[in-house]
């Protein structure tokens, strides 16, 4: 029994999500191989070789894979999948784009956002915006699934896996035009240990500056509710929730966020939740470990001063 894990990377470095998916692979049990697909990604393969518990790192390095397009990557994965009983990827925008395509080509079902391994064919996954947990058993020969990385701890990096180059090269159907990534010095939202999030109550994008200061003071990342994103205060890649990012930091500070179920879906597994809101009836207070009923424009600067 062997497990294939599709690595997530930007051709320069391996994303921490991959190390978390390896931990999920260890919970399933069996030989773990990591597949690195990209272009000029030699360094990524070396990083993947260091992940504890990995047997082989398969490397498909070609210009046609440079932009990680789902069409040709899924064909490549299909080509190597015959040796594996499990095919895993992080439940990131990359994994969600590629893996259902792989599953359909293999004619198997796919499990999304697995949060717990019960056995090699039985897994737990959240449904209805995380308000229900479903324990499901896959009846397919191959189990293809995306893994919610916030539910697993990254494996260490003292491994020494074998590198296996793959010769496949498949042209993509689509053409990559451009990417505009949000520039930030702050830690990545998905893996930050502290997240400071703001909602509609911030009022405008300038006011988000005080949350950025708070995040910087705590060495954390900035997040947002859908309302704040829709109002144009911050870019959409900062959205936390059912349709945005799922985070589980040590400390989550929700500022001016009412706590709609779709937002809670993205952060309710945080270790400590702090809510600052002037509405005492806001649902966020029902799940916050520490609630402060106050005007955020007074409370946040005061908090900044006291830290």
């Amino acid at each position, binding site marked *: 029994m062997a497990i294939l894990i599709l690595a997530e990377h930007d051709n320069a470095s391996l994303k921490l999500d991959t190390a978390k998916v390896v931990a999920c692979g260890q919970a399933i049990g069996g030989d773990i191989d990591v597949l690195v697909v990209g272009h000029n990604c030699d360094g990524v393969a070396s990083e993947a070789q260091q992940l504890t518990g990995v047997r082989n790192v398969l490397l498909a390095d070609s210009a046609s894979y440079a932009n990680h397009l*789902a069409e040709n990557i899924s064909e490549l994965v299909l080509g190597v999948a015959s040796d594996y009983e499990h095919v895993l990827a992080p439940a*990131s*925008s*990359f994994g*969600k*784009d590629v893996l*259902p*395509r792989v*599953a*359909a080509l293999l*004619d*198997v*079902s*796919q*499990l*999304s*956002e697995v949060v717990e391994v019960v056995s090699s064919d039985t897994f737990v996954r*959240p*449904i*209805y*915006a*995380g*308000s*229900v*947990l*479903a324990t*499901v*058993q*896959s*009846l*397919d020969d191959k189990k293809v699934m995306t893994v919610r990385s916030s539910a697993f701890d990254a494996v260490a990096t003292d491994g020494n896996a074998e590198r296996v180059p793959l010769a496949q090269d498949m042209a993509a*159907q*689509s053409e*990559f*035009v451009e*990417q*505009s*990534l*949000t520039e930030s010095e702050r830690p990545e939202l998905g893996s930050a240990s*502290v997240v400071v999030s703001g909602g509609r109550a911030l009022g405008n994008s300038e006011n988000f500056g005080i949350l950025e200061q708070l995040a910087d003071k*705590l060495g954390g990342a900035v997040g947002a509710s*859908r309302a704040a*994103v*829709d109002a144009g205060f911050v870019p*959409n*890649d900062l959205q936390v929730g059912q349709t945005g990012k799922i985070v589980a930091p*040590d*400390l989550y500070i929700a500022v001016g966020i009412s706590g709609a179920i779709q937002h809670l879906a993205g952060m309710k597994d945080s270790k*400590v*939740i702090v809510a600052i809101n002037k509405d005492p009836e806001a649902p966020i*207070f029902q799940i916050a*470990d*520490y*609630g*402060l009923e*106050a005007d955020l424009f007074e*409370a946040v600067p*005061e*908090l900044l001063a*006291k830290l």
Partner: protein
Amino acid sequence: MKILVPIKRVVDHNVKVRIKSDGSGVDFNNVKMSINPFDEIAIEEAVRLKEAGIATEVIAVSCGAKACQETLRTALAVGADRAIQVNTDADLEPLGVAKILKQIVKREAPQLVICGKQAIDDDCNQTGQMLSALLGWSQGTFASELKVDANELSVTREIDGGLETLMLALPAVVSCDLRLNQPRYASLPNIMKAKRKPLEVIELNELNVDVKQRVTAINYTFPATRSAGVMVEDVAELVSKLREEARVL
């Protein structure tokens, strides 16, 4: 250009779902059902393309029991030209739905399929990608902007670090993110008109598609509830609690 829009009937997004007492499933008794919010965005986008003179016909399709005709009428009221219900009581998984949709695509020959990126009940986020794979078409998932030319489609996608733009050759499958558009409300006259628009019912067994279950649910539970927290008086108390009690600072 013909556009096909798959639609799903789901528990309304404002409903707090209940689980049957034996944990065997979600309780749908007396629960408000609605069109999946992402599918509403998909139909809106298709109708806008029609209004822009790019699309010639918009076909809404839904797979499920008779009640999903109601959901299809919603799509018709917003501006779809006609609807197809694939009638079945089977519990469909994304792979099964994708296989059904593939057959509908063969019959209707649309050049573009626009679907929601995920259904808010199963939260799978799979069907569009699977359909695209089965058809051998290109895909533009999590779209927040769409520009259609004669043979090409420019899709701006929401990705983890920001945005990305792809050019897709048609035919293609596009899945919508929340920010693609703001769906309109159906006016009363349009709701009345929608009742007279064609709605074809196709029995699932006519399509000869394998929709057997690949995944069985063992049980459903609620996640552990968080223990009730405390309200603090002021910022000073908050900081001291975070330092001394929670030890996160």
